[in-house]
């Protein structure tokens, strides 16, 4: 039980008044961000990141991850009370959550959402606790070819498994990788793609791009819509809490199924949003009474929320163990790690034990504290929505600018942020996904370094990516995932031919 003793040590790192206070601050900010229209997990973490620049890495990551948990909890509040999903993965929560609120069962729905979120996260955190160290120590044997193969796998699975049009995902990813290469080349010292602009020498900072893409563009998009709100208010009493919790064991199959789906899709890059829908749909399919879904069934809240949180949390597993984020927000957290001078990846478990286990312990503690907090303070946060958007929008703009400037103390970055805001707005409207771009931008230079080191090692022979069983199977898997839509279609056709004709009608 090495993991267990390390975890206990992690709790010891955490249990100081300062860290606990930061945790609370992070959760409050996170719930706030999750409740506000036009802001969600990735935006919130990106905007609030500069607050942590002067902290030590452990405090910083604890606060940031708490912002993330808070935002996940907060998203459920708007979905249920106002029928406004704060994030794509809260959409499925509105299907049954909002009808419940309309029937006067808002408190019940909220309790169910928070509780199942907690269960989903806990499942994923347990997975991280026991799997991540093993994966990390396995990955310690990786050389540059293996690492490049893993990066390739990440990129390919985004293209192959993503829901968007393939060429749009490729565009987003290629652009991200290209922009990551702007500036001074670390290997040869040559300048690339700077076109003589001295401001581009530093390269395009990942966080500046993210703040623009998610923060500014989201404000522009939100303004397009009618911002009038109409919703319910709710207070969770102990009585309701007890009633929901009492029934919880009856839904253990749903909870477990959704947790497992969420954790699996969270680890796979690009699968976070699909998790909540899949959790919901499977709960509906396996239900004895599928007709009652969508009309205010509590199981319809349990299923998507558990899956969404499990996937949101599990996305941190590949980030910690391999240095590959499983979601947009995880990518931003990874960007934060680099700012604090930590190199995410398997070595983190060896060189920065305190940090890693502090973070994992904070996942447990943050979720427990977060659960208690949202259960008790729902009315306060629902009231936040009374603040007119005209007051919130400019404040978000200012926070974004502070964030962008603080990273490198450069005015140029504020302009860059504005440019990325416009780009993000247009991309979202024509359906070019932003998550692959984010991921490519944060991984770009490391993927390129791994590629070049592998090439230098092999003397320029591309066969190095099939030189042993491990790297060969990862590379092959990457190509299978890249062409997955084609392959699954081909298999579908074959199995159709083999099966007897389906009954019609």
């Amino acid at each position: 039980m090495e993991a267990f003793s390390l975890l206990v040590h992690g709790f010891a790192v955490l249990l100081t008044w300062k860290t606990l206070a930061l945790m609370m601050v992070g959760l409050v900010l996170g719930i706030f961000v999750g409740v506000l229209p036009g802001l969600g997990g990735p935006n919130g973490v990106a905007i609030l990141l500069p607050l942590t620049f002067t902290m030590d890495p452990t405090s910083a990551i604890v606060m940031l991850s708490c912002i993330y948990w808070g935002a996940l909890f907060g998203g459920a509040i708007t979905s249920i009370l106002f029928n406004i999903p704060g994030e794509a993965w809260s959409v499925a929560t509105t299907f049954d959550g909002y009808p419940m609120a309309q029937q006067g069962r808002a408190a019940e729905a909220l309790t169910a959402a928070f509780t199942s979120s907690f269960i989903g996260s806990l499942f994923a955190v347990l997975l991280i606790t026991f799997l991540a160290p093993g994966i990390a120590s396995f990955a310690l044997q990786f050389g540059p070819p293996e690492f490049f193969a893993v990066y390739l796998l990440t990129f390919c699975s985004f293209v192959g498994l993503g829901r968007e049009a393939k060429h749009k995902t490729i565009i987003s990813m290629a652009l991200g990788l290209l922009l990551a290469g702007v500036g001074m080349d670390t290997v040869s010292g040559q300048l690339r793609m700077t076109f003589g602009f001295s401001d581009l020498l530093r390269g395009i900072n990942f966080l500046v791009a993210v703040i623009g893409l998610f923060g500014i563009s989201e404000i522009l998009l939100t303004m397009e819509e009618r911002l009038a709100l109409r919703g319910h208010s709710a207070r969770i009493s102990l009585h309701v809490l007890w009633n929901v919790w009492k029934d919880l064991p009856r839904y253990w199959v749903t909870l477990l199924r959704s947790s497992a789906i969420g954790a699996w899709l969270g680890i796979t890059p690009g699968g976070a949003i699909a998790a909540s829908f899949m959790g919901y749909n499977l709960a509906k399919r396996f239900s004895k009474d599928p007709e009652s879904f969508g009309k205010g069934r509590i199981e319809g809240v349990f299923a998507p929320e558990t899956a969404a949180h499990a996937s949101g949390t599990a996305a941190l597993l590949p980030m910690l163990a391999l240095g590959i984020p499983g979601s947009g927000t995880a990518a931003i957290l990874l960007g934060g790690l680099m700012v604090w001078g930590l190199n995410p990846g398997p070595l983190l478990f060896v060189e920065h034990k305190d940090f890693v286990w502090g973070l994992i312990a904070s996942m447990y503690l943050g979720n427990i504290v977060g659960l208690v907090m949202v259960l008790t303070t729902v009315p306060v946060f629902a009231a936040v929505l009374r603040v007119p958007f005209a007051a919130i929008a400019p404040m978000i703009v200012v926070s974004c600018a502070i964030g962008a400037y603080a990273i490198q103390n450069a005015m140029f970055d504020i302009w860059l942020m504005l440019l990325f805001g416009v780009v993000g707005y247009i991309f979202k409207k024509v359906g070019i996904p932003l998550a692959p771009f984010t991921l490519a931008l944060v991984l770009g230079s490391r993927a390129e370094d791994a590629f070049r080191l592998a090439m230098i090692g092999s003397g320029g022979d591309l066969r190095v990516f099939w030189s042993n069983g491990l790297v060969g199977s990862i590379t092959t898997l990457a190509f299978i995932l890249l062409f997955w839509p084609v392959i699954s279609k081909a298999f579908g056709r074959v199995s159709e031919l083999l099966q007897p004709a389906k009954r019609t009608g």
Partner: protein
Amino acid sequence: MSSETEIAVEDPTAPAEDSPPVTSTRVVEIAVYLVLAALALLLAFDNWRTGMGWASDGPQAGYFPFYLSIILAGASLYGLGRTILNSSEGREAFVTRDQLRRVMQVFVPTFLFCLFTQWLGLYVASFLLIAGFMWMVGRIALWKSLLTSFVFSMIMFVTFDIAFDVIMPKGPLEALFGH
């Protein structure tokens, strides 16, 4: 059970549902593909100039980005061709006139805010942005707008510049107080 009170927020300047479209998604999509393809070619050229071949010790600096620009150009041109050939897709409005007006209501002040930050410093610019936006776009009473924006800017100043030591661009006003 729970105590139910309705929360309602009105939106006085909401875009009308039937506002005429400015342009269709299709047109914007074609423009985006053209810009991306042009950018890809420009970057490909720059990387070709840097050197995209093999040196004695492995790939040259331009190798990796050169092939990425080729991929980007390929995907953009594919998208361009698909959008042009498939004329039934993307007929819906990209933005309506009312929506564009609202987006500009945020974008223009944000742009001015960035511009003013260079001369007046971030905090003065943020005071002007928030107060101006609340008053003019949100139709919120002037004193409320001024007060909110003053309090917010002060909180930001104290949090970042004093408590967390994250230094922001400053202008003549801060200089007056010796910062």
